[in-house]
């Protein structure tokens, strides 16, 4: 499974757009890119998944360049409640194990 690299932490202010970039240089042809959000003492929550180009849902957008060696999770107009750890995962979408790294700890300040 492809290894991912993402910043350990990021700070932002309420109302700003936050972009978290994840590197996955060894991504395989069959791999999808998935992002999870985790609050303290809770399980991770699925945010968004994509294979290429751009995916958007009600909470976030995922940008994937043509070479797929990186991806960017975009959170529009963050609020204090978006303070959490965000994990980027890469896998073959076949229902197997998820490989979590250390994630990015996002802190949103008023």
């Amino acid at each position, binding site marked *: 499974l492809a290894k991912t690299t993402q910043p350990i932490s990021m700070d932002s202010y309420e109302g700003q757009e936050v972009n978290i970039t994840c590197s996955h240089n060894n991504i395989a042809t069959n791999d999808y890119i*998935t992002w999870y959000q985790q609050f303290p*003492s*809770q*399980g*991770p*929550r*699925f945010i968004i*998944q994509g294979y290429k180009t751009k995916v958007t849902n009600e909470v976030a957008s995922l940008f994937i360049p043509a070479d797929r060696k990186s991806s960017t999770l975009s959170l529009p107009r963050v609020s204090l409640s978006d303070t959490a750890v965000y*994990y980027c995962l890469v*896998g073959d*979408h*076949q*229902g*197997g*194990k*998820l*490989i*979590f*790294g*250390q*994630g990015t700890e996002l802190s949103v300040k008023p």
Partner: protein
Amino acid sequence: DAGVTQSPTHLIKTRGQQVTLRCSPKSGHDTVSWYQQALGQGPQFIFQYYEEEERQRGNFPDRFSGHQFPNYSSELNVNALLLGDSALYLCASSFPTGDGGYTFGSGTRLTVV
């Protein structure tokens, strides 16, 4: 909302004891995975169950075992507890293909003293 339910929420055990954690998957899901999350770390995959069989296993010793029942619920058993087993244990359910992502429970906080 019939999400993933885990019990108990918190547990304190003594070193050397055995523990059983329980998980009920999200309605419609038939695949259950277990993860261990140490403080400040990402979740680590323990194993996955589908059709009452262990389908995949992570790098955990045999002290960690599991079971899946016909109603898709699952148990995680840990024998001969070590202090290092203290962690948040997460259960995740999904379809076998992973379509739609995994739904995680809130976990069981296990403390070994």
